[in-house]
């Protein structure tokens, strides 16, 4: 750990004192250096491919581009009216690691697939370059459920409405996105199906049906209902429609997130008069308080490996993203810019976070890689917030 980096980070935090929280320090684990060479007849295509490959490698948190790498990628791009072909040969310390071809109609998914294969072949871990992020766009009074890939292609608007669409949640099998929409004059719960494009209302209790959170097996959704006059967390069985009430207090209980085992749920409650995080068994029952260090904690998200929880907390008058161990220890601040950083979600491998931030003006989605603490802005232009991360793409 280089002292210089810590000093720089401390300087950036306004008014940092010994009692303030330690910033998340870069893990600083060694990234495997990879050199890249891309050739082809279409120069524009070659430039796009090379730029994206370098991007995907450098954001992986596991590999990094270098002039002379431990591994070398030699790629060539061909295009004709049938589509684009990306050919790549990878050597590692002189040994042939893989030779592969990818074909499709756009260069970006091909490069993402190559980058993910690189990560897997070199480190044995799954890469996230092929994943996507769904989120909400608000544009002059129209709401959209948008999906964006991790490259310069513009977002795809799945659904649009003049009334509020909010709190999307991607299912663990990648096939559905749950969300709340107010188009029928109530905050109702909907499911969008990626396989047939339908958006169907699945729950319409009086009041709120919001903040859906999928159980890891995809069979249940924990969500917030307010039909009894007060927000509580319920468990919805997706197939049968059965509802089980998990909390029954006069305070606000909301913002549930499952542990990756499915056995526990972390959620926000203001039973003390101010919002804090609590953990309960996913069958309901007693809840243990999990946060003790900030006056306002909300929107928890449990990491895929089960060891950490990300959340938003108020620092001074601003909101920042924090990461702590699931037992509440080792609290680290992760964002330092802007006044409203909220709704953190983990990538499927737990090496990245997506969140919304107002650091650049209107809210936008940012993605953060936790090894080097690199932050990238994902969305441009219109107000974008409430991110949910897709699972890993299925590959044959």
């Amino acid at each position, binding site marked *: 750990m280089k002292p210089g980096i810590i000093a720089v980070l401390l300087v950036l935090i306004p008014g940092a004192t010994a009692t303030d929280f330690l910033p998340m320090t870069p893990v600083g684990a060694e990234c495997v250096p990879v050199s890249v060479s891309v050739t*082809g*007849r279409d120069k524009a295509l070659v430039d796009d491919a090379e730029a994206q490959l370098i991007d995907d490698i450098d954001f992986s948190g596991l590999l990094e581009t270098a002039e*002379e790498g431990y591994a*070398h990628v*030699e790629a*060539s791009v*061909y295009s*004709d009216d*049938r589509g684009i*072909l990306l*050919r790549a*040969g990878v*050597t590692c310390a*002189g040994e*042939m690691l893989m*030779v*592969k*071809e*990818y*074909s*499709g*109609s*756009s260069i*970006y*998914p*091909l490069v*993402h*697939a190559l980058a993910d294969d690189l990560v897997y072949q070199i480190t044995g871990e799954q890469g996230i370059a092929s994943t*996507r992020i769904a989120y909400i766009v608000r544009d002059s009074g129209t709401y959209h*459920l948008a*999906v964006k*890939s991790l490259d310069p*292609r513009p977002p*795809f*608007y*799945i*659904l649009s*409405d003049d009334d509020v669409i909010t709190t999307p949640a991607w299912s663990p099998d990648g096939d559905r996105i749950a969300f709340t929409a107010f*188009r*029928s004059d109530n905050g*109702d719960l909907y499911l*969008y199906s*990626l396989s*047939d*494009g*339908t*958006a*169907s*209302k*699945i*729950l*319409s209790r009086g009041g709120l049906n919001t903040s859906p959170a999928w159980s890891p097996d995809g069979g249940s959704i924990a969500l917030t209902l307010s039909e009894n006059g007060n927000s509580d967390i319920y468990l919805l069985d997706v197939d*049968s*429609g*059965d509802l089980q009430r998990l909390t029954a207090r006069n305070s606000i209980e909301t913002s549930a997130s499952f542990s990756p085992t499915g056995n526990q749920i972390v959620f926000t409650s203001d039973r003390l008069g101010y919002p804090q995080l609590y953990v309960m068994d996913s069958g309901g029952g007693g809840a243990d308080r999990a946060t003790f260090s900030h006056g306002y904690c909300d929107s928890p998200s449990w990491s895929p490996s089960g060891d950490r929880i990300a959340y938003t907390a108020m620092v001074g008058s601003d909101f920042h993203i924090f990461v702590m161990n699931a037992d509440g220890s080792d609290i680290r601040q992760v964002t330092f810019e802007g006044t409203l950083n909220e709704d953190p979600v983990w990538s499927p491998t737990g090496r990245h976070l997506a969140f919304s931030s107002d650091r650049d003006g209107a809210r936008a989605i940012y993605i953060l890689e936790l090894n080097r603490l690199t932050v990238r802005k994902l969305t441009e232009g219109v107000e974008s917030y409430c991110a949910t991360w897709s699972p890993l793409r299925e*590959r*044959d």
Partner: protein
Amino acid sequence: MLAMCAAVLVAMFTVTSAGCRPDEPLPDSDSTEVIPGDDSLLVGVWQPDTMATYMEELAVHQEQLRDVFFEYDSNELDSEAMDALMFDANYIMSHSGFRVLLEGHCDERGTIDYNLALGERRAQAVYDYLVGYGISASRLETVSYGKERPFSYGSDEAAWAQNRRVHFRVLPGN
């Protein structure tokens, strides 16, 4: 080491690109992975509001189903009870998309405990009949309220007779 690296690379690249010129159509390779572009996403179509319709349907089922009444301190199904029960069984068999909670109730006479048990026996009697009729057990649930949730508050036979029943409560689901 670097020279060997380079040599291997050149050799590999020559092999893979042998016989292919970039400006000619490329042969298909069975080692090629086809990656779908993200035009695999479908524009969402809002489905008609079936929720309100479903709730209305459930209300209709609730209207139709008849409660089954019992004699004092009994869980036997007399002929009137059987009429209602046969109608209900037929209705439940021929309409799908809902489940039924069979609530056993009792009049106020007798102890709380005894009546909880009696209510249970009444609900069970109806349950057994319906399952025997051919209705799937997964569509049925039983509960006993004993004398705790009367339909009629009174201390005469008219009120008591109202309360000695199994009430059919319609639930959403299959």
